[in-house]
């Protein structure tokens, strides 16, 4: 078993808490009672419930108690890239970041496109990871964009959805069939909309900044055109379609239109894209090289609006560990990706602390909504739900130190960033897997 802080499973009572439960729009003073790995009661009504015998009682002193985060887009090195990240190191990073469920992308070596591998990951993560790790399986075999994987069998063994990860499916017929077939199993198809031909040799957002830096640009249309196509296919098939990440204002409009039309369409945005824009690349800093790329400030503002009005369903970390071998290169030759598990909550809380979005809405995009999309039992603080809970001080200031990140790779775009909001305690199935200690 991984090292957990309280090995004996004592009941837990969190008193004097600001209870945040987006599943019932609850933001109120109250108590949360946990026993046997599930929530017994939560909210003001729990104040009157008698505490279980032998419970650990924690006075939260007004700190927030929220559902643990469910991060829908996480790349893990294991298997095949253990030098970048393992289940153990990703689990520690997740626990410290308040992420109680990691949805793992199938871009591993070997690719998660087979029943045996999903089964292996379930067993391996149960043994080595502090938090829940659930794989999404590939839509197409080998992520090659051609033949479908065994959606039904994969779902039965624990694949929580289907995605080709970093890869876009350029063949519209393949995606059409995947959406159609997945519908029979109620499975979610998560796609990365980025036309590889329009992306070309581009490495950052197209425009003045790219031109000044002498870097080739990626036009927003690489995302917009493919997203528009995808939405048409979702309408055609009535399948459940989720855009893994959108990055620009036009994409948000497409999603809004699809939702108004009543399609089963949803989308995500990364916390990094909510916090940063293309200018942050500065003098060719490769930790800011992402896919989709960081866009303009107007696009960033649009993403925040999308979160605020619920058009954007989920906030993800898009955690993508890369080491110096792939990052310490000239910008055009470096790999895409940034780590984000430990900064997901803090970066998202910037929206709250800036007054753009309320805490309940951000918490919903980080927990309740992903649980709904994936059909998971968590993401809420109601009696009987799994006790995947975090205790958060939404105002505690801290400075991000890349070297202290628990992830095996240190490629954070938030080096030296000042944050407000810190996880004090992370609880998975009733067990405390992380407790904040001032360093």
């Amino acid at each position, binding site marked *: 078993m991984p090292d957990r802080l309280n090995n004996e499973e004592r009941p837990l009572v969190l008193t004097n808490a600001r209870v945040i439960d987006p599943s019932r729009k609850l933001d109120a003073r109250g108590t949360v009672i946990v026993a046997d790995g599930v929530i017994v009661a939560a909210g003001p009504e729990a104040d009157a419930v008698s505490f279980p015998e032998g419970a650990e009682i924690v006075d939260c002193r007004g700190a927030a108690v929220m559902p643990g985060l469910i991060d829908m887009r996480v790349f893990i090195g294991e298997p095949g890239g253990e030098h970048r990240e393992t289940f153990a190191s990703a689990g520690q990073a997740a626990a410290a970041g308040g992420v109680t469920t990691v949805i793992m992308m199938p871009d591993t070596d070997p690719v998660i496109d087979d029943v045996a591998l999903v089964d292996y990951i379930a067993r391996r993560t149960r043994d080595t990871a502090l938090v829940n790790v659930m794989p999404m399986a590939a839509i197409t075999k080998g992520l090659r964009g051609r033949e479908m994987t065994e959606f039904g069998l994969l779902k039965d063994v624990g694949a929580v959805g289907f995605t080709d990860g970093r890869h876009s499916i350029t063949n519209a017929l393949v995606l059409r069939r995947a959406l159609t077939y997945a519908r029979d199993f109620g499975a979610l198809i998560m796609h990365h909309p980025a036309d590889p031909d329009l992306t070309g040799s581009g490495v950052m957002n197209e425009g003045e900044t790219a*031109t000044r830096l002498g870097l080739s640009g990626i036009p927003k249309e690489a995302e917009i055109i493919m997203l528009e196509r995808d939405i048409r296919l979702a309408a055609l098939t009535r399948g459940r379609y989720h855009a893994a990440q959108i990055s620009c204002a036009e994409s948000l409009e497409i999603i809004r239109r699809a939702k108004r039309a009543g399609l089963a369409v949803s989308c995500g945005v990364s916390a990094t894209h909510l916090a940063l824009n293309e200018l942050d690349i500065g003098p060719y800093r490769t930790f800011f090289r992402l896919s989709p790329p960081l866009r303009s400030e107007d696009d960033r503002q649009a993403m925040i609006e999308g979160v605020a009005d619920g058009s954007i369903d989920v906030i993800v970390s898009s955690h993508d560990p890369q080491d110096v071998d792939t990052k310490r*290169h000239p910008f055009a030759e470096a790999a895409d990706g940034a780590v984000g598990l430990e900064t997901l909550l803090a970066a998202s809380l910037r929206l709250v602390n800036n007054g753009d979005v309320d805490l309940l809405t951000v918490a919903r995009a980080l927990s309740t909504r992903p649980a709904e999309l994936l059909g998971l039992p968590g993401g809420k603080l109601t009696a009987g739900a799994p006790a995947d809970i975090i205790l958060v001080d939404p105002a505690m200031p801290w400075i991000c130190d890349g070297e202290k990140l628990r992830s095996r790779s240190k490629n954070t775009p938030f080096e030296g960033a000042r944050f407000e909001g810190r996880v004090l305690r992370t609880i998975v199935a009733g067990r405390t897997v992380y407790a904040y200690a001032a360093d």
Partner: protein
Amino acid sequence: MNELKASPAAVFAHRHLLGIEGLLPAEIIALLDLAEEAVEVSRQVEKKKAVLRGRTQINLFFEASTRTQSSFELAGKRLGADVMNMSVGSSSVKKGETLIDTAMTLNAMNPDILVVRHHAAGAVHLLAQKVGCSVINAGDGAHEHPTQALLDALTIRRHKGPIHDLTIAICGDILHSRVARSNIMLLNALGARVRCIGPSTLLPKGLDRLGVEIFTDMRKGLADADIVMMLRLQRERMDGSFVPSVREYFHFFGLDAEKLAFAKPGALVMHPGPMNRGVEIDSAIADGPQSLIRDQVEMGVAVRMAVLEALAQNLPNG
């Protein structure tokens, strides 16, 4: 040096020359003034100065270059430096690895000045962060080539006087050109009116935000220009088809006598080299009386001497 004049180091207080962007007009002018002196030195029988005596200069070229590399070599030698040339050709090794690894190896040899050319934009910035010596950007991808812009400015100034109020047209493959970017920055800093002319497929997005006027019709773009700067059509860099054929390109954007006639009478023609005769420039123009192309080569050595001298005065124990 004249005692009454501010030393270039006092004006140019940088450790590296990574680009024109970020330089103040006064710093650019100080470098040009210093280069004027270097022109005089280079025209004497005794061409040596001692400002870099005992210093080691390494020319590290990840991309083939004859003109720029030999120009830097000569400039360093005229200032008394020990100059070593390293050409790191493309190998099967991942190029970025070669960059950092080579840089660390060279750093261990304690050079004072590293002159670097690399095919990737930003590579020279990356290297400057890793080494302990002064770094000069001799061209990084499609980003900057600051000494080319300085030598172009020196050439213009010697023929046309102060650069402000001149109209300068930069023509051709702006998209892939580091020379264009450095020139746009420098000429704008000195108050010139800068135009860019080329087919839309070779004009980068956001170019209009860099303070230039954009033309896709060469005759309109050349109207009233004092200087016509031609760029090499970098066929080897193109990863697709930006222009349909050389024939069509020359027809619309090749500089010949007919098109040059639209510029101001006495307009002068420049080209950073190497030229594709018959693709972007007609031989009769390249070798004709309005051409400054050979002057540019001479000014290249002088400008590089000036840059080396300015940086040398900021070196530790300088």
